């Protein structure tokens, strides 16, 4: 998928762990981990809203469109 999740970078900038974010947004650590590793197929607006609220950021800071990376991934399969 050409949509990359930049949660790792945001957490690093905010000096926050995934567990702390999970506690703040009310998601399970497993679900948040799926999102962070780019394995999620979809994200709810409510989840996006909660993460943006907890990290004081915009949805665009979390998600990035990277067509070149997607092409590289599909070619390596």
């Amino acid at each position, binding site marked *: 998928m050409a949509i990359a999740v930049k949660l790792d970078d945001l957490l690093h900038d905010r000096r926050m762990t995934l567990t702390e974010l999970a506690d703040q947004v009310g998601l399970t650590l497993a679900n948040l981990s799926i999102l962070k590793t780019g394995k*999620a*197929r*979809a994200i709810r607006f409510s989840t996006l809203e909660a993460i943006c609220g907890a990290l004081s950021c915009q949805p665009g800071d979390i998600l990035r469109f990277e067509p070149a990376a997607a092409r590289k991934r599909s070619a390596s399969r």
Partner: protein
Amino acid sequence: MPRRASSTAALPIAYAVLRILTVANWLMGAAILALLVVMPNEQWIMAAFKLSPSPDAGRLIMGLRAVAVLGLVGIPLNYVVLKRLLAIVLAVRAGDAFVAANAVHLQAIAWALLGLQLLSLVIGAIAKAVSSPAHPVHLDAGFSISGWLAVILTFVLARVFAEGTLMREDLEGTV
């Protein structure tokens, strides 16, 4: 929500019935095979059906042989239906109804049912062709609206399961 007693009993009953039908199908196959082995003996068939030597009787025997061969072809098709249905019942009992495997099972069942309906058409046509006023042949075969509806329904259901599986995968991957 608690499941109703009838719905919880349906799966074990279906499982048992399908197991019994699978054995019955193999027994029927063995019986047809035995019939085909005996059939070359025209004297025996003439005696069993109280036929007198005539062109009609010869045609009838040929027709019955053809029907027996087609019946034998139907055995593996029946087996596909029963085996795949059993796999679906087991998957549903395990709480996994909308999985890709069930869509594939239903697709296979639909093709097998289509094959059985075509066989039924041919058997019906043969029965009609060899039947005569002196030796009427009444076989429960031929065109059946409910049979063809079952074929269409199963193809549609297979598609529904395939779509349901995709929706479930999407839902599981939604954060």
